[in-house]
């Protein structure tokens, strides 16, 4: 195995058919109109020297190495900025060009340190390569002239250095920050020879707007921007293609290694989801995988108050199997269950649900998707027939209007957020529905046309008002509706009711009626309008209703079934889609088929050799209720910290305390393992072998870069527990598990590891009807036949602000941290977000006498916690916000038992709270100062 190096064509591909014929160095090549001469040459296998050009950035024309000779044109045009023209004859190598190129290199090297042998990029430096390519032998200017060799290195970023003395001012980093990432944190400062790359207004990288996505580091052709890991460890010598284990975007990465040590993660250009881009988590925050906190041996204890003791695998697995069977014997088949993990591979999830259904003999399996996107599964299945988003990410490049509801992509799905921003800079219009003024509402070079500051809990009223406008203002796509949908008339009569008008619900939503009407006209009037949504939609008492409301709106306006449209959930975790696909819900077998479907059940029974239950099992919150009731006694928790992440922490811990056996399988001891009897160490994504399915239904390979540090793959552990319970479950490798998935699940029938290795990734359904997968769904007809309009009655949540709890708390994520923070808190990412903060509008803070940075108590009727305040007018008055990345904050101590009526997805987004000053920031800093003294 060696390092994978993608070909760099120099300039981006142009869409369209290859219709322009040009001749380059005597070779004919046919390329699409608008293609640069440089790219055309690359297509013909001719490499033109270049430094400032790279194919994910617009041509810039600054390095002047790529000059060529074109018949009939005077001078030596730059091939990167010159588009092909029919019949053009180009020469890329002439003595004159060679002289010019050497002249350019001579200038570069006259202001560059000559320390190649000790330079961290030695062997991976484009400047070095080009000096060789142009045959530079002498720098006649000498090295004593004016130069930048004494400039200091900026090491403020935890992951990379900026060594300005090596900078050749090609602006690739500056352009990458703008064009690829869309942050515009970098600039060129100074004029002429003094032109230097600078972060922000000239401070350090950390002081600037830099989000540490790594695009600049990747773009840099020299050692100027360099991963510190490469500086410290040296150049990697092999690559393994794999998939990021953070959010639902599912970015493809090259894990670059020396031996078994990961030197760096580099986003893969041919990755279908990310196309070479990355964020601070996937790119840099992988250090947790080798963190000393990782527990590598199984542990057991009799009671949760006992100390842990490490045991061998055999003992731990044997114990789990034996105890599970004992509990079933005493309390019945249904007294045990398992929770599968959306962090794990499809193969691991599949075996967990199989263990529950076949070895446990019940349907008490659920997944952490319960608490995030279960309403998506329900709502889209009801209306369209498939529990998944309709589009691929790329589709947004064709959208003219983007409606973002309850999602904060630039923080939670950063790589897709950058893609949205790019499309907006190209001219697409944006509507944001969110209580907070998220970054997309206004950031460099983008601005939302409409920001609908909807009050938490009133989403359905808002979406109904939009649908009302569509129906009453003649904006319905009648042809689409008549041809493709059902139950429209009934729905139209319902939604036309004046109680749904924007004016009628203005008081409820807090959004001015005129704004709703204008936004709706924009959405409905677009050639292509798409909806992107997140947990701000699902995590409500009417999460499922809202999903159906959006589905209605898209159908009514004909925005389904082609590029640029659709209804798209932004999945929170890497494999939420996959864990749902794999049959993790208590009522569904793999492929979303109900357990009561005899034919489906029979097929599984035949293959698995066990009788399966036809009744749905317990959902996660039902498990907790049943545990407190005493009818549910044992739980296998796979890779999820339910104590920190599920609502109403007290209720969760009471349930766990009531159980006879809690088995936790995870990388680290966590809040949940405090209540566990057995801890089974898990594997990080760097050790896993399998697949993740991202938010666009894309099945990506996860390839191991090292053997499991624990000695066992997680799927092996699960199989061994099943075996310990007397159920024979055995696979040679995870590819075999995928083969079984393909046999049993029609939408996966064309999927295999071999196929994925061949084509990179596929989007399900992938079967005989769609052998290459299905980027866009419902093109000809809906999966369920006709798209179904569902009446979406607005029912206010029971969680209301009161005199005692006058504020509404809503929760979410921040860019640098991930979920409960188990991974990111164990990396340099904590430099950006060392603690959860409570964001609060200046007015709400002022009336409570709270200043920025003060510590406050946050109380709901459920519980109370304390944290520090960040005063920020991006919050509306009356709403406060926090993240749940840090266990010390315990944001879920205050969240309630309310949940989505259809799926029991918790209502994380609406909790009535009160905030009170606990400790002003000045007192606190005084105390902080006192701490070291006490430690002495």
């Amino acid at each position, binding site marked *: 195995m060696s390092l994978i190096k993608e070909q760099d064509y120099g300039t981006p591909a142009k869409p369209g058919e290859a219709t322009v014929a040009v001749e380059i160095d005597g070779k004919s090549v046919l390329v699409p109109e608008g293609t640069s001469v440089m790219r055309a040459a690359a297509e013909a296998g001719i490499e033109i020297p270049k430094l400032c050009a790279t194919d994910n950035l617009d041509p810039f024309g600054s390095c002047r190495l790529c000059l060529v000779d074109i018949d009939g044109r005077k001078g030596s045009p730059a091939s990167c900025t010159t588009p092909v023209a029919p019949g053009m004859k180009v020469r890329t190598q002439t003595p004159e060009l060679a002289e010019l190129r050497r002249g350019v290199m001579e200038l570069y090297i006259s202001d560059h340190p000559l320390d190649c042998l000790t330079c961290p990029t030695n062997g991976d430096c484009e400047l070095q390569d080009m000096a060789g390519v142009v045959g530079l032998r002498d720098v006649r200017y000498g090295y004593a002239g004016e130069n930048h060799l004494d400039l200091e290195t900026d090491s403020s970023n935890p992951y990379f250095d900026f060594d300005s003395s090596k900078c050749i001012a090609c602006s690739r980093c500056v352009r990458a920050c703008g064009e690829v990432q869309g942050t515009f944190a970098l600039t060129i400062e100074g004029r002429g020879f003094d032109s230097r790359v600078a972060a922000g207004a000239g401070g350090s990288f950390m002081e600037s707007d830099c989000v540490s996505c790594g695009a600049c580091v990747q773009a840099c052709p020299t050692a100027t921007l360099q991963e510190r890991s490469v500086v410290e460890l040296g150049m990697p010598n092999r690559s393994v293609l794999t998939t990021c284990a953070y959010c639902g975007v599912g970015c493809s990465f090259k894990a670059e290694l020396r031996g078994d040590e990961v030197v760096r993660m580099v986003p893969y250009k041919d990755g279908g989801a990310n196309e070479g881009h990355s964020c601070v988590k996937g790119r840099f925050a992988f250090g947790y995988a080798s963190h000393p906190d990782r527990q590598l041996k199984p542990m057991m204890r009799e009671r949760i108050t006992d100390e842990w003791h490490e045991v061998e695998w055999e003992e731990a697995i044997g114990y789990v199997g034996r105890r599970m069977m004992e509990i079933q014997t005493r309390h019945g088949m249904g007294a045990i269950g398992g929770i599968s993990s959306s962090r794990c591979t499809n193969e691991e999830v599949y075996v967990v649900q199989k263990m529950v259904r076949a070895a446990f003999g019940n349907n008490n399996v659920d997944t952490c998707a319960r608490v995030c996107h279960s309403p998506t599964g329900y709502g889209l299945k009801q209306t369209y027939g498939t529990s998944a988003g309709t589009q691929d990410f790329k589709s947004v490049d064709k959208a003219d209007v983007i409606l973002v509801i309850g999602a904060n992509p630039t923080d939670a799905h950063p790589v897709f957020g950058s893609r949205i921003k790019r499309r907006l800079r190209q001219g697409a219009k944006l509507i944001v529905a969110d209580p907070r003024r998220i970054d997309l509402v206004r950031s460099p070079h983008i601005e939302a046309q409409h920001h609908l500051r909807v009050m938490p809990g009133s989403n359905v009223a808002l979406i109904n008002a939009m649908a009302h406008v569509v129906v009453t203002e003649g904006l319905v796509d009648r042809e689409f509706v008549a041809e493709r949908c059902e139950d429209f008339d009934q729905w139209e009569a319902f939604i036309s009711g004046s109680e749904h008008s924007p004016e009628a619900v203005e008081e409820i939503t807090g959004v001015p009626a005129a704004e709703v009407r204008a936004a709706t006209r924009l959405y409905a009037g677009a050639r292509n309008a798409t909806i992107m949504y997140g947990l701000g939609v699902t995590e409500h008492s009417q999460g499922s209703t809202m999903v159906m409301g959006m589905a209605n709106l898209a159908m009514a306006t004909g925005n389904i079934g082609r590029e640029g449209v659709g209804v798209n959930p932004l999945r929170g975790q890497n494999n939420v889609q996959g864990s749902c696909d794999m049959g993790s819900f208590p009522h569904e077998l793999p492929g979303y088929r109900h357990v009561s479907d005899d034919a489906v059940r029979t097929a599984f029974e035949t293959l698995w050799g066990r009788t399966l239950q036809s009744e749905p*099992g317990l959902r996660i919150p039902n498990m907790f209720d049943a545990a407190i009731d005493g009818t549910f006694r044992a739980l296998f928790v796979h890779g999820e910290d339910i104590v920190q992440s599920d609502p109403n922490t007290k209720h969760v811990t009471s349930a766990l305390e009531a159980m006879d056996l809690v088995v936790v399988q995870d990388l680290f001891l966590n809040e949940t393992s405090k209540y566990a009897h057995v801890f089974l160490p898990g594997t990080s994504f760097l050790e896993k072998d399998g697949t993740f399915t991202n938010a666009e239904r894309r099945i990506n390979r996860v390839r191991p870069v090292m053997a499991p540090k624990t000695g066992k793959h997680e799927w092996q552990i699960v199989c061994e527990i099943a075996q310990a319970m007397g159920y024979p479950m055995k696979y040679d490798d995870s590819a075999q598990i995928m083969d079984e998935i393909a046999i049993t699940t029609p939408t996966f029938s064309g999927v295999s590891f071999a196929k994925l290795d061949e084509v990179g990734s596929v989007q399900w359904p992938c079967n005989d009807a769609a052998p290459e997968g299905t980027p866009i769904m419902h093109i000809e007809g809906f999966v369920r036949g006709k798209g179904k309009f569902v009446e979406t009655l607005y029912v206010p949540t029971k969680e209301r602000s009161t005199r005692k709890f006058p504020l509404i708390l809503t929760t979410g994520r921040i860019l640098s941290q991930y979920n409960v923070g188990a991974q990111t808190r164990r990396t340099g990412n904590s430099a950006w977000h060392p603690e959860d903060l409570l964001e609060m509008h200046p007015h709400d803070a002022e009336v409570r006498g709270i200043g920025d940075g003060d510590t406050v108590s946050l109380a709901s009727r459920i519980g109370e916690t304390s944290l520090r305040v960040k005063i920020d007018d991006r919050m509306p008055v009356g709403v406060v916000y926090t993240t749940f990345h840090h266990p010390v904050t315990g944001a879920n101590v205050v969240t309630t038992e309310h949940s989505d009526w259809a799926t029991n997805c918790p209502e994380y987004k609406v909790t009535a709270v009160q905030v009170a000053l606990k400790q002003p920031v000045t007192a606190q800093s005084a105390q902080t100062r006192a701490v070291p003294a006490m430690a002495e």
Partner: protein
Amino acid sequence: MAQTHEPPHIRLANEIAVQFRHRDPDIAAKEIAVHIQAFWDPRMRTKLVIDAADPASGLDPVAVAAAALLTPPR
């Protein structure tokens, strides 16, 4: 802190029932029954059916009607 003390199955059934309050009660009861049948664990359904017989259960009348339509667990 004030907690909701009604049993989970009552609370959940009522939360479903209120979503159908704009529908004809008969149709609503049918749809609710289909939903509960499809998604609820049998032991919760059993509890619901038992409590539906108790006029003091606090169950929404539509939920009571729905409970009557549930088929017993297989």
